[in-house]
């Protein structure tokens, strides 16, 4: 079993499926009167939140408590963190307290990777900067599977601010690992630049031929440590052209063939950075309203990781429709996180 969940890339198909299956069992247990399980008695889970995210923190807290773990909430506000203690010093403190797992939320991409190099326990990424949010992807995949019965071959559109979205990155990684086909939709300014370039076959051939033998030989001769050269880890990258089937700038054209539409939160601050001209124009081009929802196939579902900007990326009628899984996603979050905690902490360390 894996030790950390820093990225959805830490999960291969078998492990991801095991987590979803376990989450299903956990969900079944959630229906009974006594929800608490003795499984993680004596284990300590620290919620280390450098960003406010009440819903994610509560979800992890509920998950850990249902498994009888001791939960310590370490929030950036009112702690030594705000006095400028470094992440490393905080890590050493948690280490001394005997944390078996640290759930970290941080505004800096890669903070969970750094933390994992300083603590012995498991590190679970609860959202890092604009990088990843793997448990959100797990609960999304779980929600899709329970609504639609499968993930393999599912057509999923992820719509909105892909560039800044950790939810999008984790979902692309996890869902492609599990066989779904992703289409990223949004204004070109909010789709990471290399995806567009990678779609052109000539560009692709060009970049491949630039990888000269000379350099590779040079690096090997120098013996750069394998750990420092992640190109060798054999993991597919999230946004490699093989993993991504499509990018589209036109929401209307993709809707009729989708099984799932996942709307991303779009922050209105992006307007100041000229990613798009106005909220109104964004909403008109990329918002999911009732007319657009009608273009979806009968069975298709609408997802949103929350919190929503009603009227911006999603119309209230859509958010509250029977296609919407937004409330289920919250409930499934606890089950998915219980599954992750169990699988990371439930066995021999």
């Amino acid at each position, binding site marked *: 079993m894996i030790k950390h969940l820093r990225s959805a890339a830490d999960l291969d198909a078998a492990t991801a499926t095991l987590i979803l299956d376990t989450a299903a069992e956990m969900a079944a247990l959630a229906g009974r009167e006594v929800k608490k399980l003795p499984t993680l008695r004596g284990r300590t889970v620290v919620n280390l939140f450098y960003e406010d995210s009440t819903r994610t923190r509560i979800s992890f807290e509920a998950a850990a408590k249902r498994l009888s773990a001791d939960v310590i909430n370490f929030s950036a506000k009112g702690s030594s963190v705000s006095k400028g203690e*470094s*992440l*490393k010093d905080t890590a050493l403190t948690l280490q001394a307290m005997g944390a078996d797992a640290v759930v970290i939320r*941080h505004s*800096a*991409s*890669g*903070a969970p*990777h*750094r933390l994992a*190099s300083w603590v012995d326990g498991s590190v679970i990424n609860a959202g*890092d*900067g*604009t*990088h*990843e949010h793997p448990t959100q992807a797990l609960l999304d995949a779980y929600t899709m599977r329970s609504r639609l019965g499968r993930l393999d071959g599912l057509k999923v559109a992820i719509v909105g601010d892909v560039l800044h979205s*950790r939810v999008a*990155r984790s979902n692309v990684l996890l869902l492609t690992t599990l066989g779904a086909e992703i289409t990223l939709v949004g204004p070109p300014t909010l789709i*990471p*630049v*290399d*995806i567009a370039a*990678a779609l052109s076959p000539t560009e692709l051939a060009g*970049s491949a031929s*630039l*990888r*000269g033998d*000379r*350099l*590779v030989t*040079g*690096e090997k*001769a*120098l*013996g*750069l*440590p394998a*750990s*420092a*050269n*992640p*190109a060798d880890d054999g993991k597919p*990258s*999230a*946004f*490699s052209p093989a993993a991504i089937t499509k990018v589209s700038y036109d929401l209307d054209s993709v809707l009729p063939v989708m099984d799932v539409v996942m709307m991303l939160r779009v922050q209105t601050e992006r307007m100041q950075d000229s990613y798009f001209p106005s909220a109104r124009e964004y909403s008109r081009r990329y918002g999911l309203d009732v007319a657009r929802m009608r273009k979806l196939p009968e069975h298709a579902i609408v997802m949103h990781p929350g919190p929503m900007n009603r009227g911006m990326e999603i119309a209230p009628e859509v958010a509250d429709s029977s296609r919407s899984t937004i409330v289920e996603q919250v409930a499934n979050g606890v089950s998915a996180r219980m599954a992750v905690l169990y699988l990371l902490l439930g066995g021999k360390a």
Partner: protein
Amino acid sequence: MTAYLLKGVSVVGGSPTDLIIRDGVISSDRSGALEEIDAAGLVALPGLVDLHTHLREPGREDAETVETGSRAAALGGYTAVCAMANTSPVADTAGVVEQVWRLGREAGLVDVQPIGAVTVGLAGKQLAELGAMATSAANVRIFSDDGFCVADPRLMRRALEYVKAFDGIIAQHAEEPRLTEGAQMHEGEVSTRLGLTGWPAVAEEAIIARDVLLAEHVGSRLHVCHVSTAGSVEVLRQAKARGVLVTAEVTPHHLLLTDELAASYDPVFKVNPPLRTAGDVAALREALVEGVIDVVATDHAPHAVEDKECEWAYARPGMLGLETALSIVLSVLGDRWDLIADRMSRTPARIARLAGHGTDLAVGSPANLTLVDPSARRVVDPAELASRSRNTPYSGTTLPGRIVATFLRGEPTVLDGKAVK
């Protein structure tokens, strides 16, 4: 003054010969007592010259001092380093450049040639007193706001023109600031995957393109710091073909390392400009051989531990370079000694107008030279570096080549691979 006999040395890759160092110069006089050094299998190069070193003094003596940086330089085979102006206070007055120059003299391990700031406080608003720095004891010829780009085109034009009066040169840190706000690493597939804000190649290329046109327009010398992209190489190639007086440097790390290393999120790999792609590395190597890129400069950037042992986004950019530069260049260029001497000694000395450096090791020339054992291998251990900082990206890596000795005006600064003081 001890006289030395380097027995059986290969001068810049030539066949074995004897080299005598006496009274600060290369000599043919075999009389009297000679300290003999068995130099069989060793290569003598003119002392290396670094156009781009951050010595951190004054201001961040916890990261590096002129003395510790000088020692690192000598151990790396250097006899002269150009110290960048982004100290605290900024080297934007005659007083500060003279202070750095004096500290270098006191340390006595390499010639420390201060670089002056182009603008007051590196703020990019108003020209610093370039002439005063040029006529000071420090005799400044290179001016740079390195760390920041002289982004204002009118100010850049004025600076290029103004320094012509005293044969100065502007060394530009080419980075269009609006295109790199919040940038953390090369913008590309890896930055997309890692969720780190991208530093697009065009932000460098656009400034270089503008500046070569400005330099051409006013007929001035321009030097481009740490060129990092294949596109920049193309811009420079075209400019040079037109006869623009532009020179350019590349760092050892941009000749070897790629943006994939950021996937560890270990800020030891965070540097500005960022590590680029394998394609860029290949283009830079080619350009260095061809001469489109004139010199290898280290951009030696020491940082205190707390500035690197943190989240990637909070870390300061920069890597140590002085003690590993020649090894990296050896691994990239192989034993093309004349080319190495050119790119690491002769040309940088010429650009910096450093008399007595980068000269051929002929009888009568100043004895500024370094002895290299090309067959040696060493594993880089950050704890063993002479620099006060530890931020080398090569920790644990086996590198080819070892500096056996370095001489500054006939005096050894390094003997047996160890600094003499």
